[in-house]
Every structure is written in C-alpha cells, then in structure tokens.
C-alpha cells in the first residue's frame, strides 16, 4: 500500500503542474540555534535530529519541550581523521565514517566509543531502520552504489537497489559524478539521489518497491546545477518534501531555495521559496516541515 502511495506520489510530482505558492513560512525558536560550521552529516531518530559538523561537533536538536540544541565536541578521534556522514540506529546508536575505511560509533556526549575497520573505502553513510547504508566507490560497471547491513557484520551487507553508478570518461569525473546523498526516510523507505542529478530513488531495499523519477520541477526555479536537489524528506504514508538548491547564495555558500510539497490526493504540487535560505530539513510531517535556516534559526513550512 505504501509502495503504491509513493508511486502515485512520484507520478504526481513528475507530471503535475506546480501551483502558486500556498505554503507559509514562520520562524521557530531563538536565532542562531546552531553554529555556522559546515554540516557534514544529519540523522533523524524518532523525534530527534542529530547533526555532525566540520568542527567537528555533534549537535542534537529537539522540539520538546521547546526548540533547543546541545552541541558537544567529538573526542577520541585519531590524528587526521575528518568524520563524514551521520547515521542513527535504534537506541540512539550514532555512526559516522571517521575515515574512508573506519566506522566510528559516537556516544551522545561526543566520545568515540567503538571503531570498526571496513573492508574497503566507503564514501557515505546513512541509515534506515536498524541498518546502515554505506556508499561504495564507483567502478566502471553500472551497479548499485549503496549497500545495507549491520555495522558489526560487514560480510552481511547486501546491495541497495538504487541509485546506480553512472559511467564517465575519466576516473576523477567518475568519482565526482557518483556522489550519493540520501534524505530523511519514513516507514523503511529512504530517498536517495546522485548529487548532480534530479532523479530521485525511493526504496525500501527491495527492487519491486523501488521507484525512480526525474523531478523536473526542481529546475523550475534558479538552482545550482552542480547539486540541483539539496534535500529530501519522506513523511507519513506518501508525503515527499523536496528542497531544491539555491543559486548565488550569500558568501558563496551552497544553500537550499525552493521547498516543494507533494500531495498524493492531487496532481499539483505546492511550493515556497524559503527565506532566509535553508541549510537542510530537520523534521518532516504530513503537513509541516521544519528546516534549519542560514541564520541558524528554525523555520516551519506548512499549509495555509
């Protein structure tokens, strides 16, 4: 049923006309809730969003009882380690790529509590349910870029259906063209895409429940062509929030721009050009989406 819902939804996204802006934006909580450090990972477990920054710091953003955040510095990293990506498993088990071949489990206080040596380099880390999604370096063959499994059972990782690697003319171009990003999932489904493309793959890990659609509407406004899709969040049974990138952001920094909400009951989508420009999506529900703005404040986008 959920697969049918996401299929209808994807069809509505691709083929429906975009209506005038009817989504509203309002600020939540205090200004500068989160520092201006580059966010290198985001994980959502239950109602809590975790962020990893380039500092490196671990930040937890909560909505209850009030919007607040707590940041701690990472401790226990080895020399030259620059963590990338963040995944959370049940019981708030946080994982990051401490280096390209080391998984590190983080405690909520920022301490590196465990290390797992990988059997090869990995370029990205995400999560769905109780398992991790790891991105492999691309090869000349067209094959899945992600694999799913448990952090302590590397031999049990299985291919994730999509996205597939895209061939290019050179090795450097191959690596750059096959960077994967994944958004916030729901009910076992995860949205993933190649960062330079507008094709979105929504999957629960099975080939029969994988939908791939080109989100043409993303380019309806001015976007950064290097990374047209900036962020995606699934919510409920069939809601998809798509944040397009913005062009010409202040200070040359890449930011989000237009947020589009899809509705499975209609052919049309609604959108809003979010201001101030958002950095990423923190939470998403059926009718509202909470984003982190470039000013460090939380923004809520909802239907009028």
């Amino acid at each position, binding site marked *: 049923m959920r697969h049918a819902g996401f299929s209808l939804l994807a069809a509505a996204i691709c083929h429906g006309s975009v209506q005038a802006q009817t989504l509203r934006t309002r600020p939540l909580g205090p200004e500068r809730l989160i520092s*201006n450090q580059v*966010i290198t990972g985001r994980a959502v477990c239950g109602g809590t969003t975790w962020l990893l920054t*380039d500092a490196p710091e671990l930040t937890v953003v909560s909505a209850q009882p009030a919007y607040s955040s707590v940041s701690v510095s990472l401790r226990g990293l080895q020399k030259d380690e620059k963590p*990338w990506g963040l995944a959370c498993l049940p019981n708030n088990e946080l994982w990051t790529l401490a280096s390209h071949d080391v998984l590190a489990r983080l405690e909520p206080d920022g301490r590196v509590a465990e290390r797992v040596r990988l059997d090869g380099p990995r370029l990205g880390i995400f999560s769905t349910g109780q398992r991790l999604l790891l991105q492999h*370096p691309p090869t000349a063959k067209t094959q899945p870029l992600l694999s799913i499994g448990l952090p302590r059972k590397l031999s049990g990782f299985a291919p994730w259906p999509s996205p597939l690697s895209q061939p290019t003319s050179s090795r*450097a171009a191959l690596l*750059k063209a096959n960077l994967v*990003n994944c958004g916030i999932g729901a009910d076992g489904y995860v949205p993933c895409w190649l*960062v330079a493309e507008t094709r979105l793959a929504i999957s629960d890990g099975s080939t029969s429940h994988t939908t791939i659609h080109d989100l043409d509407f993303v380019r309806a406004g001015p976007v950064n062509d290097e990374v047209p899709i900036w962020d995606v969040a699934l919510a409920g049974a069939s809601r998809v929030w798509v944040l397009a990138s913005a062009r010409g952001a202040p200070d040359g920094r*890449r930011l989000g721009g237009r947020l589009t909400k899809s509705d499975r009951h209609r052919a049309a989508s609604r959108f809003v050009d979010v201001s101030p420009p958002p950095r990423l999506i923190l939470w998403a529900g059926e009718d509202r989406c909470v984003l982190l703005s470039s000013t460090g404040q939380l923004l809520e986008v909802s239907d009028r």
Partner: protein
Amino acid sequence: MARKPITRKLVLVATVAFALSARPVRAQPPVQDQCMTQLMACYYWAAAQAGFWSMWAAGIDCELAMVDCVRRAIVGR
C-alpha cells in the same frame, strides 16, 4: 643521480600543496576547483613514490582525498 633532485622537488611541491590545504576549516566549505588542483598536485606526489604498488596506493589515497574535498564543497551544508 639526476632523478633524486627532481623527486625531491615534486615531493616538496606536493607537501606545500597539502600544507596549504590543511588550513583549519572554517564555516566556508572548500571551493570545488581547489579540490581538483589538490588532486593534480597529489598525483605528482604519488608518481614520485618508490615502486608500482606504492604509487598505485598513493594514487588511491589522492582520489579519496579528492572525494572528501568535493563532497564537503558541494554536499556539505
């Protein structure tokens, strides 16, 4: 040996390039062009390694460093 001074110069160039790229990361992500420039400099350094397998491994490290640079430049929020 004529090869040694050239090798030392290549290593020095690559070392300087790496040192410049190792400046503390501030709130701004790296510019993507810098990533490709660093990759080229790293390839020179890799080519100076002794032995085929050392060169190959060093080249892989260069590409992984480039991927890290690019993803921070274009995916980092």
